[in-house]
């Protein structure tokens, strides 16, 4: 790890971190602020929801959700937080080394007296810091908003912690999978389409599997591994799926190091 690369990376990503954190903050405040009026009408709402076809509800992650419950309500929001986190993390993953190559600064960096191993470590650590900053901000905002808006409704802090901690593993999946894909293709020209594709793709896979019912495709998407409704209603993770998620992330990360250390940096042409 070299401190100068770490700081340089962190500085480069600062604007993006601020934007994402701000976006999440607004989303959380806006959504949770309607909980008080929502929970008053909850009986009515739950009744209305019951009339929708269950497949459609499943598609929107509302399968067995109790919107009158503080964390049930938050769990529904959490799917959209996850969507943001997935796009942010895949964006960082895809861009981690490919931006240097597409903007042709890789020659500058790698002709310095640093090993690829050090470069990768520093970049990853800076990215983890960036994601961590986003996390801490949205955790605090969520926590404060829940305290303010829950009214007389109880909530289980342990479940909230499960959601938060799951969010970190969730981000790692997209970061490492994005990274390994960026190293497998010859050249990533623009990061954003890839990141949106991976994030939304994983989300839609989970949503559609809700509609299709029996197809087991959803087992590969982190939106399923860390399904907030499951976590809220069971007060626990779906352990085998979480283990699968961690295994894929670790594998992708190991493969990324392996590929990057052996990589031929493409020349300008």
């Amino acid at each position, binding site marked *: 790890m070299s401190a*100068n690369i770490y700081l340089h990376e962190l500085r480069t990503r600062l604007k993006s971190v601020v934007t994402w954190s701000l976006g999440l903050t607004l989303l959380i405040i806006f959504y949770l602020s309607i909980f008080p009026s929502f929970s008053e009408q909850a009986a009515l709402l739950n009744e209305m929801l019951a009339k929708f076809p269950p497949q459609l509800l499943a598609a929107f992650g509302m399968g067995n959700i109790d919107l009158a419950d503080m964390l049930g309500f938050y769990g529904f929001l959490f799917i959209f937080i996850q969507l943001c986190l997935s796009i942010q993390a895949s964006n960082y993953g895809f861009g981690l080394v490919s931006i240097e190559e597409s903007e042709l*600064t890789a020659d500058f960096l790698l002709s310095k*007296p*640093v090993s690829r191993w050090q470069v990768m470590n520093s970049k990853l650590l800076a990215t983890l810091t960036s994601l961590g900053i986003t996390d801490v901000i949205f955790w605090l905002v969520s926590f404060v908003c829940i305290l303010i808006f829950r009214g007389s409704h109880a909530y289980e802090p342990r479940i909230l912690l499960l959601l938060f901690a799951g969010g970190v593993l969730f981000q790692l999946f997209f970061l490492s999978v994005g990274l390994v894909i960026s190293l497998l293709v010859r050249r990533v020209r623009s990061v954003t389409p890839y990141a949106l594709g991976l994030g939304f793709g994983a989300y839609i896979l989970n949503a559609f599997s809700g509609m299709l019912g029996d197809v087991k495709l959803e087992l590969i998407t982190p939106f399923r591994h860390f399904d907030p409704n499951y976590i809220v209603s069971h007060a626990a993770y779906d352990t085998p799926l979480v283990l699968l998620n961690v295994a894929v992330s670790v594998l992708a990360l190991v493969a990324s190091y392996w590929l990057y250390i052996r990589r*031929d*940096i493409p*020349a*300008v042409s």
Partner: protein
Amino acid sequence: MSVIEVNNLTKYYGKSRGIIEVSFNVEDGEIFGFIGPNGAGKSTTIRLLLSLIHPTSGRARVFGKDVVTRGPEIRRDIGYLPSEVYYYEGMKVRDLLKYSASFYDCDCTQRIQELSELMELEMNRRISDLSYGNKKKVGIVQGLLHSPKLLFLDEPTAGLDPLMQRKFFDLIRKENARGVTVFFSSHILGEVQRLCTRVGIIREGRIAEISDIRTLQQNNYKKVRVEAEGLSALSFDLPGVTNLQAEDGTLHFFFKGDINAVLQKISTLQVSDVSIEEPTLEEIFMHYYE
């Protein structure tokens, strides 16, 4: 002592050729010219020596250390000026140079100051606002700011105006006088002749010739054209004559060797026109291509 030792170094990009079995040595303190047409493998060689890419086979050592296994410590004493310069667009020149300096164990502030004054570099401008020539100057400063022992210059003069080119050459000569070894890649024979002590010529990924610049100049090819009546291909049957072409009364050929031999031959003829000139680089390469 050899600063660079390259042994049967081969690089394929998939199936397409990079370089094939390239071998040469660069000695301590010399300016080694590496010359060849575009796509011959000059940049590939430099990128291999910097471990930006990995060899398919063969090996290369810099400062006696293998480039594949000991790249980072080798690069401590290397300065690199790429043919196309690209830096972090959002950064200011000053910050980029500071970032560059932060990779080395030195306080390079003084030297950055000296170099940027010499190259007339504006330190407070953003990289994205710089013209190509100015970016090249940033490249020169960042390649030299840590006082490297070995310099890789890959087509360094492209984009520099003639005045800056001269300053740049003076700078390189001064560095060389301090004992810095220079690896100078170019496709312009003239600038290599001005600066280098030895040259390697590369074509289609293979080393065609390595020679002392003086030998190259002594044995320099001359392009000769003789116009006289009754000339035939046999009229200039001398050792050193190549590429002989005859067309009604005019002979074109390249000659390598003592030019007096040709002059004596010409003096025995009743010529109507003669020209002896330096072949262009393209013609020299054409020659090596055969």
